[in-house]
């Protein structure tokens, strides 16, 4: 498995299936751990950081944690490959941009990944399509058990698993869902979702493009409390109270749109498709906005010539590093060195979208 292979594939978690997939794009569960007897990353010497990276790589690869696990030395990878991994949600942006010895181990289907030497020595995650939080948690918990047979993690009876930042201490558990809320935005009711999340002490943030409104239909919601609650309780609360409430707002808004503004919705959806099929230059934000409308149209069954899987896939392969990587591979270039000018990237993006959506 190489990173170039990934460029052409969709991640398993973007398949567009699983419970509540009309609103919940994916569920993610993450555990933060640190090796016992070692300082946290900030106070490690370069040699200790290397030691940790090597040790964890060996342990993870031999622990048989998931199917077809492969390791990428992130410190040795080029900037484009690092960006690619980040766009696929296999590593964080900080991990991509850091300078110290670090890596990531990824399962063959990309549903499982362990970042080595991110903010904590170990950050492991399971990503699933749709709302599959319980399954995801069971898997990550089993992986944690298996790793714990091989290494000791820093732990105190008072504070639980010890993390570099006190906001992760205790369970080290962060559960999150990626939500598509186009109808709430169209009806101007996004505040509802934001308030609901806030009342339940959750973090909600826009996705794709840090804090910009342009791609404002996608949100990630995650728990903030990691201490003083059992893992199962965190998962159950998320699953049975938080997500259904927000989901309900979005579904009601969709119903209302259909009932009162079906022509307007169709107009938006079909215009979006027409643009995606004929644009010659497509910026990333514009693509996200158009694909969001298309996705809404599919979920409202206004359109059936494109399926959900294709749209989810385009969200991914339309991201900047994917566009550039794909282009380089087509031209037979292994590692493009210079960043591509944005206009050129926009042209290639438009071309990819036209091809995939049967445009001209």
């Amino acid at each position, binding site marked *: 498995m190489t990173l170039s292979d990934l460029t052409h594939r969709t991640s398993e978690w973007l398949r567009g299936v699983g419970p509540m997939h009309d609103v919940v794009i994916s569920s993610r569960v993450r555990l933060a751990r640190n090796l016992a007897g070692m*300082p946290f990353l900030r106070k490690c010497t370069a040699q200790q950081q290397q030691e940790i990276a090597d040790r964890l790589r060996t342990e993870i690869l031999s622990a048989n944690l998931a199917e077809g696990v492969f390791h990428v030395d992130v410190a040795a990878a080029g900037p484009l490959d690092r960006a690619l991994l980040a766009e696929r949600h296999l590593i964080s942006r900080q991990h991509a941009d850091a300078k110290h010895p670090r890596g990531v181990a990824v399962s063959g289907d990309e549903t499982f990944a362990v970042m080595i030497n991110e903010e904590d020595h170990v950050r492991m995650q399971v990503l699933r399509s749709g709302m599959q939080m319980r399954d995801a948690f069971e898997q990550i918990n089993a992986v944690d058990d298996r790793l714990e047979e091989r290494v000791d993690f820093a732990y105190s*009876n008072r504070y639980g698993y*010890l993390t570099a930042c006190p906001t992760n201490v205790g369970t080290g558990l962060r559960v999150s869902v990626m939500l598509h809320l186009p109808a709430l935005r169209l009806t101007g009711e996004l505040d509802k979702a934001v308030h609901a999340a806030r009342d339940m002490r959750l973090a909600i943030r826009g996705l794709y493009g840090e804090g910009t409104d342009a791609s404002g239909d996608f949100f990630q919601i995650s728990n903030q*409390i990691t201490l003083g609650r059992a893992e199962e309780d965190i998962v159950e609360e998320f699953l049975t109270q938080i997500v259904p409430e927000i989901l309900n707002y979005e579904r009601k808004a969709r119903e209302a749109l259909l009932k009162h503004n079906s022509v307007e919705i169709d107009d938006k959806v079909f215009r979006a498709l027409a643009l995606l099929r004929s644009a010659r230059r497509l910026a990333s934000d514009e693509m996200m906005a158009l694909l969001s409308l298309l996705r809404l149209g599919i979920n409202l069954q206004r359109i059936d010539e494109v399926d959900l899987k294709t749209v989810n896939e385009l969200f991914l392969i339309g991201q900047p590093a994917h566009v550039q990587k794909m282009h380089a591979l087509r031209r037979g270039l292994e590692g493009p060195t210079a960043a591509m000018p944005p206009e050129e990237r926009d042209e290639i993006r438009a071309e990819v979208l036209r091809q995939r959506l049967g445009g001209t």
Partner: protein
Amino acid sequence: MKKKCDKCDKPATIHLTEIVNGQKMEKHLCEDCAEAEGITIKANIPISQLLEDFVLQTVGEEEETPSTPMTCEVCGMTFSEFRDKGQLGCPNDYEAFREQLLPILARAQDGNTQHVGKAPRRAGTAQQKQMAILRLRSQLKQAITAEQYERAADLRDQIKQVEAAEPERPAE
């Protein structure tokens, strides 16, 4: 201990320290009352930011009573460095900065300061062992810096010994 909101009976989640005419004023409010006072806490602020805001507020209090700089003897982390970077230096910092950390933890963790979730199978003895190794490693680092190679070799052996010692199984 959970404080109640100054204005109503709900639990206070926003704690502010203001200096008015040289007088320190503390406010403890719930989110609704805070909003009514024009203090808004945006939900999409990353927790790191919230932490930072909170830490900055408490700094004021701390600096009124000049004290020796707080340092973790194991990793050399100072509390002010943590304040700047938002990240701790080693597991021992949770004990070294206990007093300062507790209110921050409570703020970030909805008042919780005691873990109730999963524990490693070897939790009981593991904790002491972990601290022993951590200390030995920091001594090793100092020995290497001071070019005391015999001592360093000695410490390496000690680390190996402690690591190899099988932790006792916790009594069921």
